[in-house]
């Protein structure tokens, strides 16, 4: 049952990612990417990482993807706007990604034997309480720096987006 649930969510993620890469219409591509984000949130729930699942839904599937869709609809792209790449470049792209996949899987196959024993599953490490305790004890400085980064991002986006600099 657990394995079936895993394979269902994994199939959903991979299928929507494949459709995202190969879809001609960018609007449908981004919509399919939203499905991928939701299925990765499902993976987080299966991994006992409830905090990350909620953040994934709010930040990725909610904020970032809506920003993508907003820009996409504002730009009013036509479907035939995308220029054709020649077949050699397409083949090279698929071939390179395939070789990369084979390489990564081959590397991980070498360490397949040393199984990591699942320990401390009862402590619920991904719950918001524990992660918050960790965040505000050991990671306070990166947390504050992240707020400065967000501020810089906001100012930069406004400056770049202005009509006349």
């Amino acid at each position, binding site marked *: 049952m*657990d394995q079936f649930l*895993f394979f269902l969510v994994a199939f959903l993620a*991979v299928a929507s990612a494949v459709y*995202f*890469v190969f879809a001609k219409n960018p609007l449908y591509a*981004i919509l399919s*990417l939203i499905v*991928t984000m939701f299925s*990765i949130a499902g*993976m*987080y729930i299966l*991994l*006992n*990482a409830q*905090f*990350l699942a909620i*953040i*994934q839904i709010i930040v*990725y599937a909610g904020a*970032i993807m809506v*920003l*993508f869709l907003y*820009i996409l609809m*504002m*730009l009013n*792209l036509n479907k035939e*706007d995308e220029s054709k*790449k020649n077949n050699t470049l397409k083949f*090279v792209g*698929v071939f*390179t*990604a395939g070789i990369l*996949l084979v390489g*990564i*899987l081959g590397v*991980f196959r070498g360490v*397949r034997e040393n*199984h*990591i024993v*699942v320990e*401390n*599953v*009862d*402590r*619920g*490490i*991904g*719950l918001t309480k*524990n*992660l918050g305790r*960790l*965040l505000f004890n050991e990671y306070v400085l990166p947390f504050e720096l*992240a707020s400065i*980064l*967000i501020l810089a*991002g906001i100012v930069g*986006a*406004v400056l*770049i*987006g202005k009509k006349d600099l």
Partner: protein
Amino acid sequence: MGEVNTFIQSIPLDYFVILSSVLFCLGVMGVLLRKNAIVILGCVELMLNSVNLLLAAFSAYKGNGDGQLLVFFIMVVAAAEVAVGLAIIAMLYRNTRSVDVSIFNKLRG
């Protein structure tokens, strides 16, 4: 703690490694294949998400919360990156009436 499910004890860690590798390579393939700048930015998001999944999986299997906090910070950086990147794409569209990356060669020499 009763509310924690014991799902991950029946799934090997390899499955998560394979899934995130496949997602990462799909993202690489999208960057190499597509010409729409918005879709390329989305492919970068897909790659970030696959790495996030791997970090969360290792963190959950080792019972250590540091990896999940790293995922949290990656999400923060990704949000800022997308905001600036989409502003740049909107500016490029306003100047060239296209988001095709093959005509963005204005910085070339």
